[in-house]
C-alpha cells in the first residue's frame, strides 16, 4: 500500500469520527465495569450494529473493543478490580500505586501504554497482516502448551514472597479451572451436579468474586483507598502533563510487550489475559529491579496494559486473513459480517479492500481519538480513590453482581461470584494471592485442552512436546525465563558480597 492509499484510508476511517467517539466512550465505560467488556457489550448492542451499514457497524465495534481494553485497567488500578481478565495483571502493581496515593500516575502509565500499544500494533498489523496470519501455522497445540506455561510461570513469580502459599493458591486455581466438561468426551467433572458449572468455572463471576467482592469486603476496614495523608485535591493540568510525559520513559518496554500481545492475540484461543500475564512475567524477569514488582512498580502497570491492547489488533487477524474468528469478540463481528452478506477472510481483501484494511485503520484512528481522553481521564478519575468506602463498597458489590449475571444470564452466577468473593476474601486475609488463583482458573483449562489435543494427535506420544523447532525454542526460552530471575539475584548478591568483580 502506498502513501496516498494509506492517507486515503486514514481519512476514510477518520471520517467516521461520529461513530468512533461514542464507541470510545461506551467502550471505556463498559470496559471499566467488570462483566460487560467488549464482547458482552457488542452482543447487547447487536440490534444496533445489525441495523446500520456494515462499515459503520464494524468501525463502531472495533473502536468499542479497543476502548474497552483501555477502560479495563481503570478499576484495576483504582479499586483493585480488573474490568476485564486482561487487566487482572494490572492490579498487581497498579493498585499498590493507588494505595500509595499515586493513582493519577498509575492511570497515566496505563493510558499511555494502552494507547501507544494500540497505535503501534494496529500500524504493524496494517503492513504485516499476511505475515501475522502465518503465526497460527507455527504455534499450534504443542507450542500453545509452552505459551500457557509462560503464563503460569507468573504464579511462581507471585509466590516469591511466600513460596508455599503462592504455589497452593496457583494449584487451587488450576484445580478449580479443571472443573466442568472434559475436553474430549464432554462429561462434567467436579461440578457438584450444578448445571451452571458444566462449562467450567465461569470466568467473569470468578473474576468479580475474587477481585471485586473480596476487595469490597476488605475496603470496609478503611475509610478510603488512598492513604489518609494523600493529597485531597485534584492534580493540576501541569502535573497531569508531567505524569503523562513521564510515562513515555518506558517506551522500550511498551514496544516489546505490545508486540508480544499482538503475537499472542493472533493465536486462536489465546487472549488478553494470557498476554498480560506473560508480559508481566517477562517484564519482571528482564527488569533491573524485579524485586520491586508487586509493590507499586511502574513497569508492572505498563507491561500488562501494553500487552492487552496489543492483543486487540491480533485477535482480528485470523478473521481478516483466514476467515475464522480467533476469539469471542471476533466471533460476534463475524455475525455482523454474515448478516450483511459480506465475505470474510482473504475474499474480503479482494472484494472490498477498503473495508478490510479499514477495520484495522479504524483501530488506529480509535486510538488516536483516545489520545484526546488521556488528559481528562488521568486528571479526574484518580479522585475515585478518595471517595468514602462506605459508598464505594456497597456500590461495587451491587453493580458488579449485575456484571456477573450479564455474560450468561444465569442467576446462579451471582451466587458463584459471591462464593468466589468469600474465597478471595479468605485468601487475601491469609496471604494467598488471588491473582495466582485467577491465573490458574484462566490458564488451567486452556493448558489442559492444548495438552489433550497434542496427546491425541500424537497418539499418546509424550515426545510430541519436543517435536517442533518453534516449540523447542519456546521451551528453551521458558527455561531461561525461569532460571533468569534466581540467577540474576544470585549474581547480584555475590556482587554485593564482593565475591565477583
Amino acid at each position: 500500500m502506498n502513501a496516498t492509499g494509506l492517507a486515503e484510508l486514514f481519512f476514510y476511517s477518520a471520517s467516521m469520527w461520529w461513530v468512533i467517539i461514542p464507541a470510545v466512550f461506551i467502550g471505556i465505560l463498559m470496559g471499566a465495569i467488570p462483566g460487560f467488556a467488549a464482547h458482552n457489550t457488542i452482543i447487547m448492542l447487536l440490534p444496533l450494529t445489525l441495523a446500520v451499514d456494515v462499515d459503520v457497524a464494524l468501525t463502531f465495534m472495533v473502536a468499542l473493543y479497543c476502548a474497552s481494553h483501555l477502560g479495563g485497567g481503570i478499576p484495576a488500578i483504582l479499586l483493585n478490580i480488573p474490568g476485564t481478565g486482561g487487566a487482572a495483571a494490572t492490579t498487581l502493581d497498579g493498585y499498590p500505586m493507588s494505595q500509595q496515593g499515586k493513582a493519577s500516575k498509575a492511570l497515566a502509565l496505563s493510558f499511555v501504554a494502552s494507547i501507544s500499544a494500540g497505535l503501534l500494533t494496529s500500524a504493524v498489523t496494517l503492513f504485516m497482516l499476511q505475515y501475522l496470519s502465518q503465526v497460527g501455522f507455527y504455534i499450534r497445540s504443542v507450542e500453545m502448551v509452552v505459551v500457557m506455561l509462560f503464563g503460569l510461570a507468573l504464579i511462581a513469580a507471585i509466590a516469591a514472597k511466600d513460596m508455599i502459599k503462592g504455589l497452593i493458591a496457583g494449584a487451587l486455581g488450576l484445580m478449580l479451572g479443571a472443573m466442568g466438561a472434559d475436553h474430549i468426551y464432554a462429561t462434567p467433572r467436579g461440578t457438584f451436579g450444578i448445571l451452571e458449572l458444566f462449562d467450567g468455572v465461569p470466568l467473569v463471576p470468578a473474576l468479580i468474586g475474587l477481585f471485586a467482592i473480596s476487595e469490597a469486603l476488605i475496603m470496609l476496614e478503611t475509610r478510603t483507598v488512598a492513604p489518609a495523608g494523600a493529597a485531597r485535591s485534584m492534580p493540576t493540568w501541569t502535573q497531569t502533563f508531567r505524569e503523562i510525559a513521564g510515562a513515555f520513559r518506558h517506551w522500550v518496554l511498551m514496544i516489546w510487550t505490545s508486540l508480544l500481545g499482538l503475537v499472542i492475540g493472533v493465536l486462536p484461543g489465546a487472549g488478553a489475559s494470557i498476554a498480560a500475564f506473560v508480559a508481566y512475567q517477562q517484564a519482571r524477569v528482564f527488569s533491573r529491579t524485579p524485586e520491586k514488582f508487586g509493590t507499586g512498580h511502574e513497569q508492572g502497570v505498563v507491561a500488562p496494559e501494553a500487552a492487552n491492547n496489543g492483543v486487540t489488533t491480533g485477535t482480528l487477524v485470523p478473521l481478516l486473513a483466514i476467515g475464522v474468528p480467533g476469539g469471542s469478540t471476533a466471533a460476534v463481528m463475524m455475525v455482523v459480517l454474515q448478516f450483511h452478506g459480506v465475505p470474510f477472510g482473504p475474499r474480503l481483501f479482494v472484494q472490498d479492500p477498503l473495508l478490510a484494511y479499514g477495520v484495522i485503520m479504524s483501530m488506529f484512528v480509535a486510538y488516536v481519538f483516545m489520545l484526546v481522553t488521556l488528559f481528562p481521564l488521568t486528571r479526574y478519575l484518580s479522585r475515585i480513590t478518595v471517595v468514602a468506602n462506605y459508598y464505594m463498597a456497597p456500590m461495587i458489590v451491587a453493580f458488579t453482581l449485575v456484571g456477573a449475571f450479564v455474560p450468561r444470564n444465569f442467576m446462579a452466577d451471582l451466587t458463584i461470584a459471591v462464593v468466589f468473593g468469600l474465597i478471595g476474601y479468605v485468601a487475601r486475609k491469609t496471604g494467598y494471592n488471588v491473582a495466582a488463583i485467577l491465573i490458574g482458573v484462566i490458564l488451567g483449562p486452556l493448558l489442559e485442552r492444548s495438552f489433550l489435543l497434542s496427546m491425541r494427535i500424537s497418539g499418546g506420544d509424550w515426545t510430541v512436546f519436543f517435536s517442533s523447532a518453534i516449540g523447542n525454542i519456546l521451551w528453551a526460552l521458558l527455561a531461561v525465563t525461569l532460571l533468569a530471575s534466581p540467577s540474576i539475584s544470585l549474581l547480584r548478591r555475590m556482587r554485593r558480597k564482593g565475591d565477583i568483580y
Partner: protein
Amino acid sequence: MSDDTPSGRRQVGSDLIIPVAGIAYAVYYVYSVWDFPPEAQRSGFFLAGLLVALCLIFFVRIGILAARGRVELEFDALLGPPRGRLGRLGFVALIGAYLLTVGTLGFTLTTFSFLFIGSLLAGLKSIRRAAIFAATASLAGWLFFIVLLGTRFPLGPFEALVNMVTSSWR
C-alpha cells in the same frame, strides 16, 4: 503466617482454611471422575496430587512450628480489626439476603435496599444521606442496566409499576 500476636506466637488457624478447602475439593474431584475415561481423569488426578502435596508440605511446616510452640490456632486474623467487625459481618449477611431476594424484588428495589442498609453497615452515620445515596445510585443503575442496556436482570414490583405507567401513556 497471618498475624503475630502480642505473645510473639503466630496465628495459623485462618491460614489453614484455603489448604483444607482445597484438599476437600481435590478429593471430591477425584471421586467425581473415578469412572471416567483416562483422558478425562488425567489432569484432574495430576492437579489433585499437586495440590494435596503442596498442602501437606504446608501442614508439615506448621506442624514443625507448633512443635516448637510458636503458633496458635486462632481465626481472629480472618475477621479484620475489631472496630466495625459487627458491621462487616452484617454486610456479608446482607449480600446473602441480596441473593435470596433479587429474584423476587427485582433490580431496583433490591439494589436500593442493599445500598441503603449496606452503606449504614459500612459506617455511614446519616440515614438521610444513605437514603439519598441509595435512591440515586439504584435509579441510575436501573436507567443504565435495565432501560438503556436492556440486560435480562430480574424485574420486580418497581419495574412492573413503571411498565404499567409507561403502558398507560401509549
